[in-house]
């Protein structure tokens, strides 16, 4: 593996009983790249992110973050990334500042740097003035900004964003992508994100991977993908690759269950 690859997946498989959520995927993301991971509902995006971020163990195959194996060198891998989860993961009964403080301690940031870094990041996302308000009083956009600030607090090399703009207004979305591009340009941070808004991916991403039915069906720049499918826009290419039928996160392979439900049933059994 070359030295500037920071995210590497090799022959990764994840099965839940009979259900194959991810079937032998491999990809590489290079340092400083903005990488979009696209796919219909239930295609395996969330499962892949969960494996990359150490929340799920792959059934087989290898995942490396910043050249640390995510299953064998879990703590080093965990220190290399920050994440903004699909659903908010803030403690609402604490203030924004306290949420940042908990994160700083969890990630072992030296005490004499904590205050300074927290202030710097809360100012970056324009929340310094509201630092002492409880998170439960925050709007959706403010929560997202706080989560981004929190995800960056320990200076990660990689930032995962799992559908970060879901439910945000256009202004906040633009603001968010401006930050992200700035981080990628100035800090050389690697960004890995998923979204259902193809215009975002087209505008922001350096490279794109499209996953469907647990397999990667195409990888490349927007130009490469449109050329490969003989289409004009990313949306057309995407539809060409994944089909036009509507997905409801279920599939016949899973006895008509979506992956999460199938997993849950399996846990009970």
């Amino acid at each position: 593996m070359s030295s500037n690859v920071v995210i590497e997946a090799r022959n990764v498989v994840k099965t839940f009983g009979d259900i194959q959520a991810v079937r032998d995927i491999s990809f590489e993301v290079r340092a400083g790249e903005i990488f979009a991971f696209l796919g219909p509902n239930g295609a395996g995006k969330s499962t892949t992110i969960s494996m990359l971020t150490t929340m799920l163990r792959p059934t087989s195959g290898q995942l490396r973050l910043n050249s640390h194996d995510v299953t064998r060198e879990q703590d080093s891998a965990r220190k290399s990334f920050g994440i903004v989860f699909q659903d908010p993961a803030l403690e609402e009964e604490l203030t924004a500042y306290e949420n940042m403080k908990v994160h700083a301690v969890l990630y072992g940031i030296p005490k004499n740097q904590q205050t300074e870094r927290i202030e710097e990041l809360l100012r970056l996302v324009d929340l310094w003035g509201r630092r002492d308000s409880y998170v439960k009083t925050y709007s959706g956009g403010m929560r997202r900004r706080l989560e981004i600030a929190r995800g960056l607090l320990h200076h990660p090399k990689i930032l995962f964003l799992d559908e970060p703009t879901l439910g945000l207004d256009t202004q906040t979305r633009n603001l968010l992508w401006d930050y992200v591009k700035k981080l990628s340009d100035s800090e050389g941070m690697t960004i890995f994100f998923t979204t259902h808004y193809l215009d975002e991916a087209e505008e922001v991403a350096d490279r794109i991977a499209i996953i469907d039915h647990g397999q990667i069906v195409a990888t490349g720049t927007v130009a490469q993908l449109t050329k490969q499918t003989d289409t004009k826009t990313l949306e057309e290419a995407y539809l060409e690759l994944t089909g036009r039928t509507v997905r409801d996160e279920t599939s016949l392979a899973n006895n008509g269950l979506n992956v999460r439900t199938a997993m849950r049933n399996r846990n009970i059994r």
Partner: protein
Amino acid sequence: MDVVYILWLRQMKRYFRSRSRVLGAIGQPVLFLLALGYGIGSVYKKAGQGNYLQFLVPGIILQTLLFSGVFWGIQILFDKRFGFLKEMLVAPVSRLRILLGNALGGATISLLQAILVLIISVALGFRPDNWAYLPLSLLIMVALSLTLTSFGAGIASMVEDFQGFQGINNFLIFPLFFLSSSLYPLTNVPTFLRIASEINPLSYCVDALRYTMIHQHHFALGLDAAVIAATLVICVFFAVNRFDRLQV
């Protein structure tokens, strides 16, 4: 600042910031104390058993520790449902330390509640046999708060949702409580009830409290202490084991 401390602190902040929770948690034991203490007290006296309130208070202390400890487990479900558990689990920290910080917070809360119930009991007329034994009672309460919070954490790591937790509550926690000797003495009870109580660890917990508070006991204090210690170890092991397998 250490990880365990900050997670403990978070639990305490959550608790003291919601006043309804503070009041709600001691409402049930106080209600039991009033309704049973005064309602059954006179019949109990006529049956020649002495002062029922004296007998009841250690049982109500156990009830407070049991229900607040186990209900604290709901916190884990909340964190799972509302996402904060993910934030903790992807941090470069072992699960053991995460569980420890959170569970110590839960144990502190349930201990505070039990002490509050004890103070209310004294205001209602309860008098310990010998105040010098009070530190020993508190020590037992500390051990029980840790045991029962671990029990709650283990259960919460196993169930999927709030409905599941409700079922555990009705079919496990309430029977455990009613089939301990918390509410009635084991001297003249039917055989099946006596056997059920004797295999229930909670009976030994309340027996130890009763021994140190009012100098009444059914089992030997050494046996009580041994059962409490064993239960503590088993519950902690159960919590660690289940929390380790928790998936979000």
